[in-house]
């Protein structure tokens, strides 16, 4: 493996990890706001959504840390990839149902970002995660 491209992937993982730590922290600071955002998707009952609102941000932070520190790297990567995939699907479904949702992924700070841009950002994120994930799978198999 070319050590320069290794560095590129490492930096990518670092950036994504930091992004999730940031996103998780913002949501952890306002669990009630996040609970309302989850509720807006009208997929989960409030009873479930409000508990998820307290749990998810911390999962994001821990997995983001896993990416940054490379401890439990694969576990963290797998979870984040799954979460992002679910989120993208759920967002598309919500929009198709005509719901008026403010993403909530970057907290209420991202309220001003238009829906399309949000989706583009999420797709880029998902792509990056999938690439990293596949790379890791290959590395584990080769080892």
């Amino acid at each position, binding site marked *: 493996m070319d050590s320069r491209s290794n560095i590129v992937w490492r930096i990518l993982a670092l950036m994504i990890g930091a992004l999730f730590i940031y996103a998780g922290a913002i949501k*952890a600071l306002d669990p009630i706001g996040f609970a309302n955002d989850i509720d807006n998707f009208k997929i989960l009952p409030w009873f479930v959504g409000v508990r998820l609102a307290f749990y998810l*941000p911390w999962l994001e932070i*821990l997995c983001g840390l896993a990416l940054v520190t490379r401890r439990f790297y694969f576990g963290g990567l797998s979870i984040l990839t799954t979460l992002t995939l679910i989120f993208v699907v759920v967002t598309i479904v919500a929009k198709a149902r005509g719901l008026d949702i403010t993403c909530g992924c970057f907290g209420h700070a991202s309220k001003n970002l238009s829906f399309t841009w949000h989706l583009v950002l999420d797709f880029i994120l998902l792509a990056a995660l999938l690439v990293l994930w596949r790379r890791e799978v290959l590395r584990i198999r080769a080892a």
Partner: protein
Amino acid sequence: MKLKQALLLVLLAFVPAIGQAIYFHDKVSWQTPVAASEMVTVTQARAWGDNATWIDARPDAEFAQDHVPGAILLNEDRWNELLPQFLVVWSPEKKIVVYCSTQGCNASREIAHRLRTEAQLQNVFVLEGGWEEWVKRRDEENAQ
């Protein structure tokens, strides 16, 4: 087995999550979503213009002295008599703004509650700051 890593992270995340949930225990509605606030500011209510119907929840004497122009008197002293008088002019498209003397008075909330439960009306709001706040705004504008 890398699956163990993921499982560990999933379980570890419960620790801060539960800690935070305990901290927020009585600040969150765990069973049902909290209804949107019934309060509205003077600025917002005035911005509604003709789309708002103003209800004065204060005693007769205070209403007689001065009230929001066009406001309808509806207080708990004469609720039975005044409610039907209001209901015959009520319009479902308009938002209802109920006020009493100050921010602290309870009459406006009581009237708003009764309008929602007894008459089953929607879009009933309580004016933040009450009559006092409305007068303050009016005086500020007149001074300009």
